[in-house]
């Protein structure tokens, strides 16, 4: 199987056993790899609770991982979300996926629960479960110093150990498998970390064709202003979006009460680059290098983190924002959910947090102590406990990211239909509606958006399965990636055959959610977006017309065949 290692690791932490088995070729054909394969492997087990020992957590790579295909250095972590209860995959970069593949494994499936804290150690075909009681309570940055040298590692900090429902799994100390709280799944299994190192090579069916396909992709990346342009993410990281979302008056401010934060330019991409003298870094083999590190080693926040610790919480101080991001990375906390839960608390309590209070609250959440204990369950449970569920800005209990839906109606639809809850990455209509890629659409219209969202969801399910980075699809597409895939595997896919697979993955996720009680009534937005206008100015930001939204949603169901 070109492009695949052909083997996977099966780890049973209850029995303390590691088995090597053959990667199921049929599932790879049907679901490719990465997200699709991981979701398919979950099967009936998806109805277990997240902390039931038989619930798997799967680290899954795709056939492009470990090859020269641009942005293929990614993987998906799949399980059931502790926060939402949905099936959840988290696409993540760093080096872990590449090292795992080079070690000779397409994926790791972990079940059971250890009695004591352990680390799984993988070095090529040598795999062991190592007791690691001494690492309990150690946060990510110290953990990196203790066990990270020479390896890639996936680990949880205290947040995951203590079951914060939106705790993340941190890869290589800075890449977050963030949304949905998969860190708590590892925590329930008393799995502190996985270290991996591999030096094998991935077999490719047609290297010459692969080189051509790669050059086609690179040419498109170089031509894309959003990627390699003067103000693109290669230059500024995703913080490049701060100025743009600010200009479009769709930056979630004060728990989505407003959509414009006058001081946002104080944490713009330009401010960050200038003040922190950033350098580029990124996932294994990636030409874009969208991650940024400050001169003194500061991990620079992504757009979502900057905006949510900024405008969403009324904070204009860049240093506070960078520190908040650092705390989240160190404890292993999803920044979007953490910031949004805090903003929800602030609105319910009628207060505005100072910088120091914001930071101390994050630490309390990470330690699951004091007020942090209540906040560690996410904004929806917290808001319900205070009798104000309507003030949780979430869908299916997953907090919304940094694009106010009143400023982009495709995004409004995408938040509602997302299989893992309030997420912008499932369909990523930011591409068309804001960045004008691959084509510009009217962000204040629902016309054509139902099919656009459906198609985008299918495409991105494929992208997550190959694995390839979402950003590359601002420039290239499945037309170029299908050729790359065929060059690697020797297969004969095209855009439509891949999209059929994407559709299968999407529908499988939806059926899994239905098995856990999710229904169409869960595909909705908080009432605020239909009743309150945004912050109009150069552009008018009215509330979303509820009838139009429901019509678009109905169209979506018809297009999907759900109705």
């Amino acid at each position, binding site marked *: 199987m070109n492009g695949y290692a052909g083997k996977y690791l099966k780890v049973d932490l209850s029995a303390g056993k590691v088995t090597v088995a053959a990667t199921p070729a049929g599932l790879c054909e049907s679901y490719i790899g990465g997200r699709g394969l991981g979701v398919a492997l979950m099967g009936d087990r998806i109805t277990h609770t997240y902390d039931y020992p038989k619930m798997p957590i799967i680290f899954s790579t795709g056939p492009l991982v470990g090859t020269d295909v641009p942005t293929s250095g990614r993987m998906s972590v799949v399980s059931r979300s502790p926060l939402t209860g949905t099936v959840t995959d988290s696409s993540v970069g760093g080096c872990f996926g590449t090292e795992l593949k080079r070690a000779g494994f397409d994926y790791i499936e972990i079940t059971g629960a250890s009695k004591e804290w352990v680390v799984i150690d993988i070095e090529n075909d040598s795999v062991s479960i190592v007791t690691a009681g001494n690492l309990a309570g150690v946060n990510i940055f110290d953990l990196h110093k203790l066990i990270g040298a020479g390896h890639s590692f996936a680990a949880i900090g205290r947040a995951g150990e203590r079951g914060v429902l939106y705790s993340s799994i941190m890869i290589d100390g800075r890449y977050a498998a963030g949304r949905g709280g998969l860190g708590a799944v590892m925590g329930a299994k008393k799995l502190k970390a996985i270290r991996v190192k591999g030096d094998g090579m991935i077999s490719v069916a047609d290297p010459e064709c692969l080189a051509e396909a790669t050059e086609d992709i690179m040419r498109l990346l170089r031509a894309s202003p959003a990627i390699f342009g003067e103000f693109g993410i290669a230059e500024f990281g995703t913080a490049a979006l701060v100025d743009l979302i600010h200009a479009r008056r769709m930056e979630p401010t004060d728990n989505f009460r407003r959509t414009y934060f006058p001081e946002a330019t104080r944490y713009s991409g330009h401010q960050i680059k200038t003040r922190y003298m950033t350098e580029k870094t990124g996932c294994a083999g990636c030409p874009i290098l969208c991650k940024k590190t400050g001169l003194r080693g500061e991990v620079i926040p992504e757009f979502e983190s900057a905006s949510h610790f900024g405008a969403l919480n009324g904070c204009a101080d860049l240093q506070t924002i960078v520190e908040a991001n650092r705390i989240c990375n160190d404890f292993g906390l999803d920044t979007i959910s953490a910031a949004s839960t805090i903003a929800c608390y602030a609105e319910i309590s009628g207060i505005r947090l100072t910088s120091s209070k914001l930071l101390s609250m994050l630490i309390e959440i990470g330690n699951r102590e004091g007020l942090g204990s209540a906040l560690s369950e996410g904004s929806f449970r917290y808001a319900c406990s205070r009798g104000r569920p309507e003030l949780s800005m979430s869908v299916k209990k997953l907090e919304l990211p940094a694009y106010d839906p009143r400023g982009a109606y495709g995004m409004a639809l995408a938040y509602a239909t997302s299989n893992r809850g309030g997420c912008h990455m499932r369909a990523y209509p930011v591409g068309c509606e804001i960045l004008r890629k691959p084509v510009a659409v009217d962000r204040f219209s629902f016309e054509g958006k139902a099919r656009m969202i459906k198609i985008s969801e299918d495409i991105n399910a494929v992208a997550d399965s190959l694995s390839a980075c979402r950003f590359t699809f601002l420039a290239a597409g499945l037309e170029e990636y299908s050729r790359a895939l065929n060059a690697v595997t020797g297969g004969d896919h095209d855009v*439509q055959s891949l999209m059929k697979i994407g559709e299968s993955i999407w529908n499988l996720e939806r059926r899994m959610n239905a098995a856990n009680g999710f229904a169409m009534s869960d595909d909705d937005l908080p009432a605020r977006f239909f009743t309150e206008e945004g912050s109009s100015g150069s552009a008018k930001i009215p509330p979303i017309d509820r009838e139009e939204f429901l019509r678009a949603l109905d169209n979506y169901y018809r297009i999907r065949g759900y109705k």
Partner: protein
Amino acid sequence: MLNVINKYLDKLEAQGLSKKEDSTFLAVDADLFCNRQTGDDIACLYEVLRMMNVSSLLFASPSEPYRSIIRQIVERDSECGAGNIIVPMDCETRTFFHDFPVVDDLNPVAMAHALSRRKAVIISNLGIVTHGAFTPEQAYISFSSACFSMFIKYFHDSLVYFDNCARNGTRIDTDYVKAFIDIARLSVVVMRRERVALRSEPPRTEDDVAAMLMEAGRAIVTRRLVDSHFGNISYIFKDHIFISRTGSSLDELEHDIDKVPLDGSSSVGITASSELSAHKNIYLKTGLNAIMHAHPKFSVIMSMFCKEAGCDRSICHKLCAKKRFVGNTPVVSGEIGTGPTGLAGTVPAVMEEGRGVIIYGHGVFAAERDSFQKPFDMLAQIEENSRQQYANAISDLLKHLLDSPFDGFAESG
């Protein structure tokens, strides 16, 4: 949705690419929309749409000369024919389309198969079919680019063919020549020569700048110096560059102009044209603040016609060490965007006041101070010079090969 379909059908007709009565445009959200209710092709296209996960499908018989050009290419190109592909070498194709598959006839399975690999497909003797993944605009853009690419390929390859015959003493195909002359006459319709008067006094306000950009953008499109959403235009005013957005149509700039600070203090320009850096660098080097970029056809063709020996032809578009000119206009290599082979570096390096720059296989940059009149006139003149140079070359070659006159692109009697 029908409004959207009709908008792009109107554009295709206005640009001389296809007539509405020769076009079938389908768009689908939850419901299906089509500009026509009856037609032999409709059932076939419905079937293609059913097989594909797209939002729109456009099938049209292109207007002349494109129809004849495509027929000639399909019949004559040794690399193509039904079941094969056409590979134009212009920049638009190389970057965004790669190649154009050819399908025998209105066979839905074959069409869907080909469209699953590429955005635009040639149906032998019938027309072009394109799809839009997200919007009908994408189908329109692909159709427009297909016509552009075929035009470039046909006229460039014909010149190369005649030149090779002359140099090698090869017997020329007189049927080819006859068809070529007929097509050349038909091509007169794509060449607009009317003078366009643009605002000449410098702007006083930002509203003036926007109005100038819109006026100049419309002029470029009306003169057919660019197709669909390609080309870009900028004006530097009070430490900001006002520039058309990426993917915008130059004749619809009212809401598609980005105001970008020259000092780089805001990344709002992430949605600006992919050639923002080229525009900025031209200004920084020359002080010329009214800058236009278009894809005029004969300028592109002549930039690709090169008789230098001993070069690696596969990299001419991104790395050319030779000093080349079309008339007095320098020709440079350069890929779209930034990077080591990007035109953001190569174009500004040779830009001078009073002289434009042609990018190999791509298009033309022209710049002047304070008003778009001179850069527009420069663009038009470079295109006219290129067309004349092409006509002269053909004329000399046909006289040599057949002792036969070629009256340029005179209209047929």
